[in-house]
C-alpha cells in the first residue's frame, strides 16, 4: 500500500532540520518540524567562520575533488568516502542556492561569495557572512521554510521535545513515530509516521561547558541509544584551542586572532614563554587546531596560557578583529588592545553520533539522522566550515530518502498498533548529570590515558540514567581505541595504528 498521506517527522530545527523540511516540501511531502526551541535559538545561529565549497573563484584551480581529499585526510580516512564525495560535489550548488535565497555572504568584486582560508585547507574555499555566517544562513532558510508553513506543507511545533520513539513491533526494529513533549504544558503527544529524522545537534550536554548551545542536551541521542540505535565514533571530539570561560560556558576566540598575528605564551613566574614559537619555529602559533590544543593543554598544567594581541597594529584590530575585541570587552571586561587574554582549549564539535548509512538511515528502519547528531562526514576530525555544509547537505539527503522510504512503506498510519517503550526510560538526576559532566570533562580531555579513562568509566558505570549510558559508550570507545588518530590523542598510545583504521560502532 502506498502511503501518500502520512507526514514525515523531523526533530530539531537547526540547519539540518530546516534543510530536511525544505527537501520534503520540494518533494510535495508534508512534514512536522518539532524542536525544543524556535529555529532562531538553535546552535546553528552561532557559527561564525563560514561554509566550505570549492567554488574555484580565486584562480587557485580548486575542485570538489580537492575538497574531498582534504576532508578525508582531516578525518584520517574514517569517513565514508562515497558520502563525502556526494557532499563535496554538492557544495558549490548549495552555496549558490543559499545566495539565491538571500544569504548576505561577503561578496568579491565579481559578485560571487568571497572565500577565505580555513585550517587544514590550502585553497580558499570558505564562504562567509562577516562573523555571522550561521545566523545569516539560518534566517534565509527559516524564511524559506515559513513559505511552506503558510501553505500547510510544513507544520511547526516549537517548544516541544523528543520524548521517545515508537515501534511497529515490540522487538524495536521498525520505527512507527514519536512521542513528543510540550515543554510549556508537559503534555505528551503521539505522532505516527514511518519515517522520523533526528536533527538534534551535538552531544554538548554530556559536558555542559562547551562552546555550543545549551539546547543540545544529547538526550535524544541517549534515548535512541537505549532503544537500540547505534552510536559511532563518540571518542572523536574537536577541542578548539583558544576558548575562554564565560557565563558557565565556553566562548570562542576565533582562529582569526592568531591568523592576524596573535601570539600564545605561558606565564612562567614572571617570564613570558612563547612555547608554540619555540617548539614549532616554522608555523608557530598557526599549527593545526589539534596540535595547538594539545600543546596548550600540556603547558597549562604548570603555567597559565595567554593569547597576546597587544602588539598588533590598531588598523588590524579595528578592521579585521573588531568582533573579537568587542566580545572580549562585553564578556570579559578585557580590552585585547591593552591586555593578553587567558585561554584554554574547549570542546567545540562532536564528530561522532548516531550511526547512519549513506542514505542517512540508522540501523532502526525508518529512523534517519542528520547534522551534528549524526556521525557520517567527518571521521576522526572535522574541517572548519564543513559542519554547516554537512548539516545542510545531510538534511537534504535524509529528507529525500525519508520521503522515498515513507512512500514505499507498508506501514499504514492509523491502523497499526504502536509500541512505545517509555517504561524503560531513565532520566538522569541533576546531581548525576553534574557528576557525569565533570567526570567526562576530566577523562575525555585533549590528552587521554588508560588510567584516567578507566577511573572515569568506573564512576560513570555507577550513575543512573540514559545520558550516563551514552557517556559510558563515549568513555569506553576512547579506552578501546589504543592509538592516536585525529582528535583522539592517547599519551599512552601516541601513534596511529593500522588495525584501528575503522569506525567505532556501539550498541547498548
Amino acid at each position: 500500500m502506498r502511503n501518500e498521506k502520512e507526514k514525515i517527522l523531523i526533530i530539531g530545527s537547526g540547519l539540518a532540520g530546516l534543510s530536511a523540511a525544505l527537501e520534503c516540501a520540494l518533494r510535495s511531502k508534508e512534514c512536522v518540524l518539532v524542536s525544543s526551541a524556535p529555529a532562531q535559538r538553535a546552535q546553528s545561529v552561532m557559527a561564525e567562520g563560514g561554509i566550505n565549497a570549492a567554488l574555484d573563484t580565486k584562480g587557485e584551480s580548486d575542485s570538489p575533488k580537492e575538497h574531498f581529499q582534504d576532508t578525508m585526510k582531516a578525518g584520517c580516512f574514517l569517513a565514508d568516502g562515497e558520502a563525502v564525495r556526494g557532499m563535496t560535489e554538492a557544495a558549490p550548488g548549495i552555496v549558490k542556492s543559499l545566495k539565491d535565497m538571500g544569504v548576505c555572504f561577503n561578496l568579491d568584486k565579481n559578485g560571487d561569495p568571497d572565500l577565505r582560508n580555513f585550517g587544514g585547507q590550502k585553497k580558499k574555499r570558505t564562504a562567509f557572512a562577516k562573523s555571522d555566517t550561521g545566523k545569516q544562513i539560518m534566517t534565509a532558510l527559516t524564511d524559506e521554510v515559513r513559505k511552506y508553513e503558510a501553505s500547510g506543507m510544513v507544520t511547526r511545533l516549537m517548544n516541544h521535545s523528543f520524548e521517545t520513539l515508537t515501534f511497529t513491533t515490540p522487538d524495536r526494529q521498525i520505527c512507527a513515530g514519536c512521542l513528543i513533549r510540550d515543554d510549556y504544558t508537559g503534555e505528551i503527544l503521539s505522532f505516527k509516521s514511518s519515517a522520523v529524522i533526528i536533527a538534534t545537534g551535538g552531544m554538548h550536554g554530556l559536558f555542559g561547558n562547551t562552546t555550543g548551545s545549551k539546547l543540545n542536551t544529547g538526550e535524544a541521542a541517549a534515548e535512541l541509544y537505549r532503544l537500540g540505535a547505534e552510536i559511532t565514533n563518540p571518542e572523536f571530539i574537536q577541542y578548539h584551542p583558544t576558548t575562554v570561560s564565560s557565563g558557565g560556558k565556553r566562548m570562542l576566540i576565533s582562529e582569526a586572532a592568531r591568523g592576524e598575528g596573535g601570539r600564545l605564551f605561558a606565564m612562567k613566574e614572571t617570564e613570558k614563554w612563547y612555547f608554540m614559537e619555540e617548539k614549532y619555529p616554522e608555523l608557530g602559533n598557526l599549527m593545526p587546531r589539534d596540535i595547538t590544543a594539545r600543546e596548550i593543554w600540556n603547558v597549562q598544567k604548570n603555567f597559565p596560557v595567554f593569547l597576546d594581541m597587544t602588539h598588533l597594529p590598531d588598523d588590524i584590530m579595528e578592521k579585521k578583529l573588531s568582533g573579537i575585541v568587542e566580545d572580549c570587552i562585553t564578556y570579559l571586561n578585557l580590552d585585547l588592545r591593552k591586555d593578553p587574554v587567558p585561554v584554554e582549549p574547549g570542546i567545540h564539535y562532536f564528530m561522532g553520533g548516531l550511526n547512519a548509512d549513506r542514505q542517512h538511515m540508522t540501523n532502526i528502519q525508518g529512523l534517519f539522522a542528520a547534522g551534528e547528531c549524526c556521525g557520517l562526514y567527518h571521521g576522526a576530525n572535522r574541517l572548519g566550515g564543513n559542519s554547516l555544509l554537512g548539516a545542510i547537505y545531510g538534511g537534504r539527503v535524509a529528507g529525500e530518502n525519508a520521503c522515498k522510504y515513507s512512500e514505499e512503506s507498508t506501514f499504514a498510519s492509523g491502523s497499526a498498533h504502536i509500541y512505545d517503550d517509555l517504561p524503560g526510560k531513565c532520566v538522569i538526576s541533576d546531581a548525576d548529570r553534574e557528576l557525569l559532566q565533570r567526570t567526562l570533562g576530566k577523562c575525555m580531555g585533549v590528552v587521554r590515558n588508560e588510567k584516567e579513562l578507566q577511573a572515569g568509566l568506573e564512576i560513570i558505570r555507577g550513575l543512573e540514567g540514559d545520558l550516563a549510558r551514552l557517556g559510558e559508550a563515549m568513555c569506553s570507545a576512547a579506552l578501546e581505541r589504543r592509538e592516536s588518530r585525529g582528535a583522539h590523542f592517547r599519551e599512552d598510545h601516541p601513534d596511529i595504528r593500522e588495525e584501528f583504521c575503522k569506525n567505532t560502532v556501539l550498541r547498548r
Partner: protein
Amino acid sequence: MKVQVKVFRGRDFNERRPEDYQIFEYTGDEKASVAQLLYELNSKERLVDIHGQTCEKITWECSCFVKKCGACAMRINGIPRLACSFFLYELKSPEITLEPLSKFPIVKDLTVDRSFIFESLKEISLWLEGNARMKPETHEYRYGSAKCLMCGCCLEVCPNFRVGGRFTGAVTPVNMYRILDEQEKNGHRKDMKRSYSKSYYEGCGKSLSCRDICPAGIPVDDLIARSNAAAVWGRG
C-alpha cells in the same frame, strides 16, 4: 561581589503582588552576567532564599550565552535585555530584579510564550517567491535585518503592541525590509505590502520607544523608515 536577586515567580505579571517575588543572595565575580548568575543559582544542590526557605529552581530560557539567539530576554531592573549580556558590574546598587517580559503570556517564572511573534511573521507572508534580487547598496541593511533574534525586547517597550492584536510591532518592519528589498515585483510583493500596512504601518504611533533597545544592535528606526518607504510610499 554580593548581590540581592529578586525574581518574579508569580502567574500574572500585570497583577503582580509582593508575594510573587523571591529574593536570593548571589556571591560571584562582578564580571558575571545575569545568565551566569541564574545558571549558578540553579546549579546549587539546594536553592535557598534569604529567609532560608528551599525554593524550586528558576525556570528561564537560554541557548547560546553570547547574544546570538535571543532566548534569554527578560526584564532586568525593569528594562528588557538579554540575560547573557547584562553584567553585575553595570549595577548601580547591589540589587537586581528579574522579571519576565510583560507583554507575553507567562509559561513559568521568567519563561514566556513568544509564539505570537513567529505566528505573525507567517501572517505577513515573510518569505521570498523566486530568487533574491541582491542590490550591493542595500547589503548592510539586509544583513542587519537578517540579524533579528526575535527576542521581543522591542515589543516589550512598544506602547502599541499586545499579543493577539492586529499590530505586530517593530519585528515586522525589521524583518520585512530584506524581503521587500530582495523580492521581484510580482503578486507576492503586492500582498506583502498590503499586509504590512495593516499589521504594522497603520498601528505604529511612531513614538520610537523601540529605537535604542535592540540587543543585537540592529538600527531598528532605520529599518522602520526603509520598510515604510518601500511598502507604503512605494520607494525602492
